């Protein structure tokens, strides 16, 4: 089953074309890693997939579970099972992490025609997932990401993912800045969700993450295009040789 199909995708931000024809197919059950130099468009791609305002798609299509999603609002995409782990998670003072997550989970459940979770069940779920991500209870009652360290913010992203159980997770540099222990915790959270009917796209700069979350495919995004694809060994090659080697060897 095809989870996501991106074809000839062009997108601009503030009048600058950033994505210049991206093609990518992700089947159910697969994990894809996207690597590439700074400013190559990785986060732009992630934001376009999730429907952020200000990112204008000028050409191409994005199909998710056989539906064209480009005209959908971010919340509709989320309700259908798309999740974005932010490279820079946003702080929201005055809205507690727990409240936020409950509002999100119940929005998804309502969309799926399920009953809203009551307070007791929700608390049980949150406790279990927080333990999985080794997240302090104290952080749960704080404002969303407010006063969180960099590592805590990243773990909070995966914690939210663990609670919301998306079909397609797009994780934008969730490993950046993590120490090795935190990296293992985050990887464990991602692996726990691995299932034949779920897929993950991981944006990363570091091959190290891929030792813990083993990808089915590795792609190189450069200057708004996927210029090379391979298996997990490509990540090792990139680590050893850098990106300039891809540009010269380019295969697309």
């Amino acid at each position: 089953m095809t989870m996501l199909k991106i074809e000839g995708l062009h997108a601009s931000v503030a009048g600058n074309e950033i994505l210049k024809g991206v093609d990518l197919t992700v089947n159910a059950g697969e994990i894809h890693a996207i690597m590439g130099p700074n400013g190559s468009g990785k986060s732009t791609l992630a934001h376009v997939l999730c429907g952020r305002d200000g990112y204008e798609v000028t050409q191409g299509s994005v199909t998710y579970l056989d539906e064209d999603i480009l005209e959908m609002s971010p919340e509709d995409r989320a309700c259908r099972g798309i999740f974005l782990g932010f490279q820079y998670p946003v702080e929201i003072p005055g809205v507690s992490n727990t409240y936020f997550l409950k509002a999100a989970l119940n929005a998804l459940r309502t969309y799926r025609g399920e009953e809203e979770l009551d307070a007791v069940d929700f608390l049980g779920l949150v406790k279990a997932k927080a333990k999985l991500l080794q997240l302090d209870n104290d952080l749960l009652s704080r404002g969303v990401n407010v006063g969180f360290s960099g590592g805590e913010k990243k773990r909070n992203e995966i914690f939210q993912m663990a609670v919301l159980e998306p079909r397609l997770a797009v994780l934008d540099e969730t490993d950046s800045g993590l120490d090795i222990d935190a990296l293992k915790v985050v990887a464990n959270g991602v692996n726990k969700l691995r299932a034949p009917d779920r897929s993950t796209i991981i944006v990363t700069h570091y091959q190290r993450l891929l030792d813990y979350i083993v990808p089915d495919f590795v792609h190189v995004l450069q200057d708004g295009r996927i210029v090379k694809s391979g298996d997990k060994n490509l990540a090792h090659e990139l680590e050893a040789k850098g990106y300039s080697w891809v540009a010269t060897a380019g295969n697309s």
Partner: protein
Amino acid sequence: MNRSATNGSAVAALDRFADVVNSLGEARWTLPAREAARDHVMNKGLPTPRDEAWRFANIRSLDPNAFTTPTAVQLDRGRVDELAPRELHAHQLVFVDGRFQPELSASAAVLAPAIVGSLRQAWQDHRELVEPYFDRILNYHDNAYAALNTSLVEDGLFVYVPRGVVLDRPLHAMFIGGASGETMSLPRILVVMEESSQATLLEDYVGWGEHRYFTNAVTEVQLRANANLRHVRWSHESEGAFHLGSLACRQDRDSHYAAHSFAVRGGLTRNDAVAELAGTGAECQLSGLVVAGENQLVDNHTEIRHLVSHTNSQQHYRYILDGRARGVFAGMVHVAPDAQKIDAQQNNENLLLSDGATMNTIPQLEIYADDVKCSHGATLGQLDSAQLFYMRSRGIDEKTARNLLTYAFASEIMEAVPVLAARAAIASMVFDQLPLDALETDLVREGVGHA
């Protein structure tokens, strides 16, 4: 000729002056203060938009001659109780159109040794406690409405907390307006806190019907050395009602005053707050939240007077304006010559939810000393697009996300309210004013804020 009240001779309310004076009885000693206040109104007239301090307040629409004198009405106890916040566990003191209602209020005996009750009674029975403060704290020089209150006031609330006494429960003073038609009521509060005493006062203005009435309130507070007053003040007047509140607090050394003010409903609301830090170590915190929509106008004027060294003040006001609402915040910080080691902070943050809403922020600093830490900041903005996207990317629909962020903006001011039940009551008023529908009950129950 039907002219509006732009000078004193046209203030019809003053026609009652003789009647009010004749009814004073043993409170006749208040006469000189009343006469001086009456003369002030007659000479200066009521403010007009040409007066700097009233420039934005659009008081043109407020013609005191359009309002009559309240008549005594009997209110049903059940309905009065319904207006009070749930589970407040406070000493309740009820005023209808400014008149104390002993049968609806806590008995004086319960509150001894503190003296809490009718100001009219106190004029008669406790002249020695009232006279040094009544009309001595608030200066009505550019606020003739306050002078109008002083000249004609017939009753109000008197609170006297003796030295070292700590009131176990908050005082909940509920001022019900508009009970007898389109009237002008003159609520008056005098609070005297002796050395090292402590109390919490909840001052609650609420509309009875849907009349266009006019609440013209004056509050005077004296804090003796080391006294501590927490003061929460909210107005939830009927739509189209006018609310003017003038507050003055004088603080002796090491006293602490925290005032939290909420203007949530009503037509025109204008609150003046003056805090005079007259003893070293005195500290005052003023915070406020305004939630206004449609054609509402809410105007807060504050003035902190640092008269001596080592005094601190903090002000934090937030406005949420929707529709064609207009907000004004004019905050003055005054530091007297040789008042050194002062820390004064002022913050005004504003959220405009519509294109038609406007905000005027006017910070003023008058600093005549050199060793002073004074900061002020004002921000004006819409909801943050990154925060909105973050919430929507998790499945929360746009409207709910907007409402949540708006509520979060308000919640920081509400979280500082010391009495939980009062905080909950204020939160639910804020909810009613914001279009929060579906989330409402959930939010009130659990709170969105930090635990």
